[in-house]
């Protein structure tokens, strides 16, 4: 209570004092908060923001402490540097910079930082320990006070204030100075942290770059076996990341001891050539030394390199390179090459750079090794292919050479057996039979060997046609029936009614069935039975041959499919070649089917085959007509397909339709062709190397120049929706029949030039050969013709009168009523009315034939080597003339 009972004056004086102190405190708070504001605002970090804070500190300290000067000194090694100041003359600043302050007790800041506490010298002139009178003379100060700046547990500097007269600072001032010193230290800490953070993140970013580059290189290595691409990637990344100007990757050849530049980056062709020409020997060059020593070597300045330069360095020096690093490529303990990066300027390379390059080097070593292995593999496969080629050629010529004498063996024995030149006694006939059947056996063996070698060399081509499978079943059965009957073996065929047509190589399939049947007859004891069952199940046709023979032990069931293995057979007949089953299985597999066996020894065996028939409802298979048509000049269709056989097939069908196919085996090439040729349509495969079909389609549709070209996608993948979504006009799933493809393409074509009102061109084709009829039909129908066919001469004239075609195509050689007779009836005289007649024949016309036909037919086309598109064009011309003359329908 007594405190409040002070006198009025005292009270008034106290109030003043309080007000002063309040104001001072407020000002101090403001200063502090100003400093803090600067501190927190300085988000940029760095020395600039540090100096801002220091400035705020020295200004506030000088003002609030009533000092003439405030300064911040920072500790550097064993002395101080003046960082910032307030109230100092330029002369003093200059003087301080020229006269370093040692960190000892001779100065105030020395004492402050050594003792880590605030010090005050009330009068420097009266302090015998104060030694820097030189400063005092320049600055003229008397009372000074300093506070340490501490960051963590380190004294980093001192904040120092002085007055030019002797006027000691009070306790409050001491406290305030400490606060300011703390704030300055904080700023310093902040800046340090900030720049540490900054360099840390810069380092991180660099590391990320490096990792990315390494990952890219790794990816390149694993994704491509084209070594030079990988190596070029490595060198370019190594150069870019090491911040150098160029580099090269050398391959080491153990045999010669030489390095050869494999790829280079940032290096002129001329220098690369010179490097390649230089003899870079492992024992005589600097690079070689790096490789031998398994360590990274660097030359900071080529000019300063001691002694004469080796050939490698001489080339580099001569073309202006000044500093370089060599990193050996070693894997796992063999030198495989070296990576060299270089600069045009001098200077050493940091450890970090070397480390980075070492990482690249290890990747390069992997790539080089891979490349080498790949190259070897390639060479080996070329050698293998050659060997296989030689083998096939050898077999083909051997087969020919063996057939020639066999012809004599078989032929002369037959001559004698035919008794052309006299009778034989029983023994003579017996021996001759032996000679003859041995010759036949050799011949069969020869055929099988040749077939097998063709399959193994991948050269057996299936001649696919569509035919009723019943036919070959019946034929194969008839060929063994006699022999079966001889042994009292019952032979039965159980076939379902819906077998229908199959698409396969007819001769080969018959060969397989015959092989299975003759095996069955061979291994079935007299009086046994053989049942042949044939069935069709959805997309598969199968045939099984079941015998009541001796059966095959489980251990032998797989072995008998190997060449010359016949299981535990009785030593009786040995007429087989030992290759039949091997060959049969391979043939069935070529058809995409399988051949299997189930057997119980003592009871019998069942051999079965199944052949897939994906287009069960298709009525006709791929024709194997060869068509000459390279000179077709119809509308262009670009075919983008990487499989040459598929491409050929598509081209064949397109040509037959009078179109001009242009083939591309890659998407990129295809795009170029589409842009260059402006085709009426594109046939596009999806599986392509590099750019796939989807990308090609997208690109075509995105380019206004090509967006309107219709695209027929032909793919094994049933992604119709995706195809249409991307803009395909048609989507066909492989395998595609010729008809389907043609139909799809022709739908896309602009309508034929003929007037819409004018009737379609109509043709009657008369030929007894169904294949010829089919061929003409499949050629003309896609072109918009209405095709009527007639298999013989009898009904031809009637049909022509009924249909009133624009042109008639007639074969000359037909049974019963031949082509001449039909022509006689249709066109008795040269000037008789009626449609023009074109003769399509396999017959070589004699002069008599020609004179007989002269004037009554438009032209003759020969079936041999027929040019179907050409025929179609000529037919169209003839028909159009007829229609124009108003004689037609």
């Amino acid at each position, binding site marked *: 209570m007594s405190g409040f009972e002070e006198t009025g004056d005292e009270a008034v004086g106290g109030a003043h004092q309080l007000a002063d102190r309040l104001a001072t405190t407020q000002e101090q708070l403001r200063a502090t908060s100003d400093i803090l504001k600067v501190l927190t605002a300085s988000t940029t970090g760095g020395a600039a923001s540090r100096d801002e804070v220091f400035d705020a500190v020295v200004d506030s300290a000088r003002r609030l402490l009533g000092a003439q000067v405030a300064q911040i000194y920072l500790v550097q090694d064993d002395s101080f540097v003046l960082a910032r100041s307030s109230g100092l003359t330029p002369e003093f600043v200059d003087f301080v910079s020229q006269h370093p302050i040692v960190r000892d007790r001779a100065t105030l800041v020395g004492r402050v930082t050594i003792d880590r506490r605030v010090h005050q010298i009330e009068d420097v002139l009266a302090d015998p320990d104060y030694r820097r009178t030189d400063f005092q003379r320049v600055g003229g100060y008397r009372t000074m006070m300093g506070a340490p700046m501490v960051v963590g547990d380190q004294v980093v500097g001192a904040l120092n204030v002085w007055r030019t007269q002797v006027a000691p600072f009070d306790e409050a001032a001491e406290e305030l100075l400490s606060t300011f010193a703390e704030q300055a230290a904080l700023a310093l800490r902040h800046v340090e942290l900030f720049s540490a953070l900054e360099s840390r993140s810069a380092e991180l970013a660099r590391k990320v770059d490096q990792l990315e580059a390494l990952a890219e290189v790794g990816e390149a290595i694993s994704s491509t076996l084209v070594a030079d691409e990988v190596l070029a990637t490595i060198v370019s990344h190594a150069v870019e990341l090491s911040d150098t100007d160029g580099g090269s990757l050398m391959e080491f050849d153990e045999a010669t001891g030489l390095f050869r530049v494999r790829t280079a980056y940032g290096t002129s062709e001329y220098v690369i050539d010179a490097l390649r020409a230089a003899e870079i020997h492992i024992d005589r060059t600097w690079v070689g030394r790096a490789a031998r020593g398994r360590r990274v070597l660097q030359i900071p300045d080529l000019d300063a390199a001691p002694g004469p330069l080796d050939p490698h360095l001489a080339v580099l020096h001569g073309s202006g390179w000044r500093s370089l690093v060599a990193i050996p490529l070693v894997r796992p303990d063999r030198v495989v090459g070296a990576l060299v990066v270089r600069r045009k300027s001098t200077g050493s390379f940091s450890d970090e750079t070397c480390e980075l390059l070492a990482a690249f080097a290890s990747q390069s070593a992997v790539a080089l090794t891979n490349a080498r292995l790949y190259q070897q593999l390639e060479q080996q496969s070329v050698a293998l292919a050659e060997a296989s080629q030689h083998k096939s050629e050898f077999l083909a010529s051997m087969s020919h050479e063996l057939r*020639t004498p066999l*012809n004599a*063996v078989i*032929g002369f024995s037959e*001559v004698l057996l035919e008794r*052309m030149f006299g009778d034989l006694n029983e023994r003579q006939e017996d021996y001759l039979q032996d000679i003859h059947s041995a010759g036949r056996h050799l011949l069969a063996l020869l*055929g099988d060997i040749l077939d097998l070698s063709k399959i193994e060399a991948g050269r057996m081509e299936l001649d696919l046609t569509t035919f009723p499978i019943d036919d070959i079943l019946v034929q194969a059965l008839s060929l063994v029936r006699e022999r079966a009957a001889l042994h009292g073996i019952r032979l039965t065929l159980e076939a379902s009614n819906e077998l229908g047509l199959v698409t396969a190589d007819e001769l080969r399939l018959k060969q397989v069935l015959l092989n299975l049947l003759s095996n069955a007859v061979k291994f079935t004891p007299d009086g046994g039975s053989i049942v042949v069952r044939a069935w069709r199940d959805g997309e598969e046709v199968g045939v099984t041959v079941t015998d009541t023979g001796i059966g095959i032990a489980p251990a032998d069931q797989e072995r008998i499919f190997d060449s010359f293995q016949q299981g535990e057979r009785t030593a009786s007949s040995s007429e087989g070649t030992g290759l039949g089953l091997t060959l049969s299985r391979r043939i069935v597999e070529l058809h995409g089917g399988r051949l299997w066996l189930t057997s119980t020894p003592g009871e019998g065996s069942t051999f079965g085959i199944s052949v897939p028939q994906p287009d069960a409802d298709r009525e006709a298979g791929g024709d194997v007509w060869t068509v000459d048509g390279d000179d077709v000049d119809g509308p262009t269709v670009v075919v983008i397909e990487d499989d040459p056989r598929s491409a050929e097939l598509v081209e064949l069908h397109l040509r037959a339709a009078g179109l001009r196919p242009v083939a591309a085996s890659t998407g990129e090439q295809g795009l170029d062709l589409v842009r260059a040729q402006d085709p009426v349509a594109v046939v596009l495969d999806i599986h392509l190397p590099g750019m796939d079909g989807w990308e090609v389609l997208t690109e075509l549709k995105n380019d206004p120049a090509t967006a309107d070209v219709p695209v027929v996608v032909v793919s094994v993948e049933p992604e119709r929706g995706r195809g249409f979504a991307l803009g395909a006009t048609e989507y066909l799933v492989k395998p595609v029949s010729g008809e389907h493809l043609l139909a799809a393409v022709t739908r896309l074509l602009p309508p034929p030039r003929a007037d819409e009102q004018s009737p379609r061109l109509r043709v009657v084709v008369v030929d007894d050969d169904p294949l010829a009829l089919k061929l003409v039909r499949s050629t003309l129908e896609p072109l918009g013709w209405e095709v009527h066919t007639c298999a013989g001469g009898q009904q031809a004239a009637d049909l022509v009168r009924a249909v009133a075609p624009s042109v008639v195509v007639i074969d000359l050689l037909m049974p019963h009523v031949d082509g001449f007779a039909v022509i006689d009836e249709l066109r008795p005289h040269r000037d008789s009315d009626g449609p023009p007649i074109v003769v399509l024949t396999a017959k*070589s016309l004699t002069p008599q034939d020609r004179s007989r036909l002269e004037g009554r037919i438009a032209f003759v086309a020969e079936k041999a080597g027929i040019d179907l598109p050409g025929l179609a064009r000529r037919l169209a011309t003839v028909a159009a003339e007829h229609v124009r003359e108003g004689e037609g329908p």
Partner: protein
Amino acid sequence: MSELPVVLIVEDNPRNLKLARDVLEYAGFCVLVATTGEDAVEQARTSLPDVILMDLQLPGIDGFAALELIRDHEPTAHIPIVALTAFAMHRDRERALVSGFAGYLEKPISVREFPAQVRRHLPRREAPEP
């Protein structure tokens, strides 16, 4: 004066030549022989056979070249030429037929069927001569 059909056999292997000759003579052909392509062209021009059996692999010009020469010469152009060969490849038949051979017989021949196979290529006798 002979009404026998005349066949020219072109074959360089003496045994096979003998076989074909003996079989065709036995079957009632008049047989001429040639052992090289050049010889065949010469014989064709001088003797104008009814049919020619031609091995494809011959010393000197081969069967294809000989065929061309016979075809290019007007008096012999019409003579049917049948290839007789031990070429074993599937494509050979096609190649021969495309080249203009009238037929293709594979060795070894079947003695029993051989004469009929050759006779099939004889021009029809009953065709009216101009």
